[in-house]
């Protein structure tokens, strides 16, 4: 594994290896050891051409716990806002000796472009590209589900996950569908038809337009954010109607299975796709997701950067 660009590049074995590594690393960081010397002397660049709080901070925390040097680079206030191309930016970072670039970009495929063009020799980690993929989020979601519900299994066989909301614009949904089904879970997408992408019938999932019918059958309810910034046209009549049919409210929360959990990748629109009561309930593992995000990203950085890469020996 040289880059982490999309879940579709990973085999089931690779994915489980990342989850197992994260598990060992989370045990290490739960204890007294907060900092490990593993990536000392390596430089990791956070190249964020789109707003982000938790992903950027999570990658930064992960890199620092492994003693890597972190350079944060956001498009605002950099030469990207003066019109510098991705190529020139990448070559600049290469000249400064970046061992890995973590890229978030509004264009789908930006991470692929960076990795395929050999503008730089380091590892490329996709931290979200447009509406395409967000692999580290899917890995931390799978990790959180496994910790809560897998009963010691290494995969997610036999579990049923509902992903609810704006599937159309969601890279989180796309990566999760690929990863969760790869790990043996059954996935049902729940959304109004206007928020499902073209060709969704080809995905290995069930589709439901009726949240009430499915909420009592699933082990995991994963709510997605309504991405107002990506919506230039109307996808539903108004927010109240959307909430009425597709929000996780107290009534739906009470009808979930006994051990079922509530997830949300954040940031939440409280009151729109999820009520405050659901988000703060005992079923909610939303803060666990954030904590696990650091362990997963440490695992990704460890597996990509700690060992030898071709041509280095």
């Amino acid at each position: 594994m040289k880059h982490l660009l999309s879940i579709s590049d990973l085999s089931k074995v690779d994915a489980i290896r990342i989850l197992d590594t994260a598990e060992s690393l989370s045990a290490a960081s739960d204890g007294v050891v907060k900092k490990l010397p593993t990536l000392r002397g390596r430089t990791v660049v956070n190249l964020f051409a789109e707003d982000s709080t938790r992903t950027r901070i999570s990658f930064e925390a992960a890199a620092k716990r492994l003693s890597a040097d972190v350079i944060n680079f956001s498009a605002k206030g950099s030469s990207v806002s003066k019109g510098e191309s991705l190529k020139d930016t990448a070559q600049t970072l290469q000249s400064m000796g970046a061992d890995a670039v973590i890229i978030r970009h509004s264009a789908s495929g930006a991470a692929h472009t960076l990795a395929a063009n050999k503008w730089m020799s380091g590892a490329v980690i996709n931290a979200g590209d447009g509406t395409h993929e967000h692999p580290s989020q899917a890995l931390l979601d799978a990790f959180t589900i496994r910790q809560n519900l897998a009963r010691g299994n290494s995969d997610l066989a036999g579990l049923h996950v509902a992903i609810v909301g704006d599937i159309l614009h969601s890279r989180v949904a796309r990566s999760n569908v690929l990863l969760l089904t790869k790990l043996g879970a059954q996935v049902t997408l729940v959304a109004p038809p206007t928020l499902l992408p073209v060709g969704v019938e080809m995905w290995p999932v069930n589709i439901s337009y009726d949240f009430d019918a499915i909420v009592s059958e699933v082990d995991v309810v994963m709510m997605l954010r309504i991405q107002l910034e990506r919506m230039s046209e109307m996808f539903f009549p108004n927010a109240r109607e959307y909430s009425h049919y597709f929000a996780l409210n107290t009534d739906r929360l009470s009808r979930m299975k006994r051990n079922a959990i509530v997830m949300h990748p954040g940031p939440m629109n409280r009151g729109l796709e999820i009520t405050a009561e659901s988000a703060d309930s005992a079923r909610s593992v939303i803060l666990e997701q954030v904590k696990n995000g650091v362990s997963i990203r440490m695992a990704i950085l460890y597996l990509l950067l700690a060992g030898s890469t071709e041509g280095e020996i």
Partner: protein
Amino acid sequence: MSLALSAPDMSRAITRIAHEILEKNSGSETVTILGIPTRGAHLAQRISAAISEIEGNPVQTGTLDITLHRDDLRLRPPRALMPTVIPPLGVEGRNVILVDDVLYSGRTIRAALDALGEIGRPKTVQLAVLIDRGHRELPIRADYVGKNLPTSAQQVIKVHFVEFDAIDEVLLEEGSDQ
């Protein structure tokens, strides 16, 4: 390929190491045994069981994964991480016995000392190994040795435990092309 230690040899060596540890530390009360995965962790369990049998009390026993502290990580593909289990009394102020199967370059032990330093400050750190094969690259020596086995760098030592390999034995193999 030759047999360096048979099952009875191994058993006797482990019993002797257990006695030596007890003699040097005046009993097992202050002792914490940490095995280095994977084979060292098994050897640690054996030594711990031998000490318990002699003393009649269980000994603080755990494992210490040192992968994240290795200095040769960049020379090989990424290694799988193993669990670190620190027993309840911790390492602070204890007489910690590090346990590994084979002592060779000494680099694993250096990494173990670093890993241990992150967890706490033991009173003493001692080293027990089943085989010392020489060729040290660092100023490190073992306090308790099952058998000193002079080797050439081409030879390979295989330590087998009944739990893993269905038999207790140590084999010395002539070098392969690697």
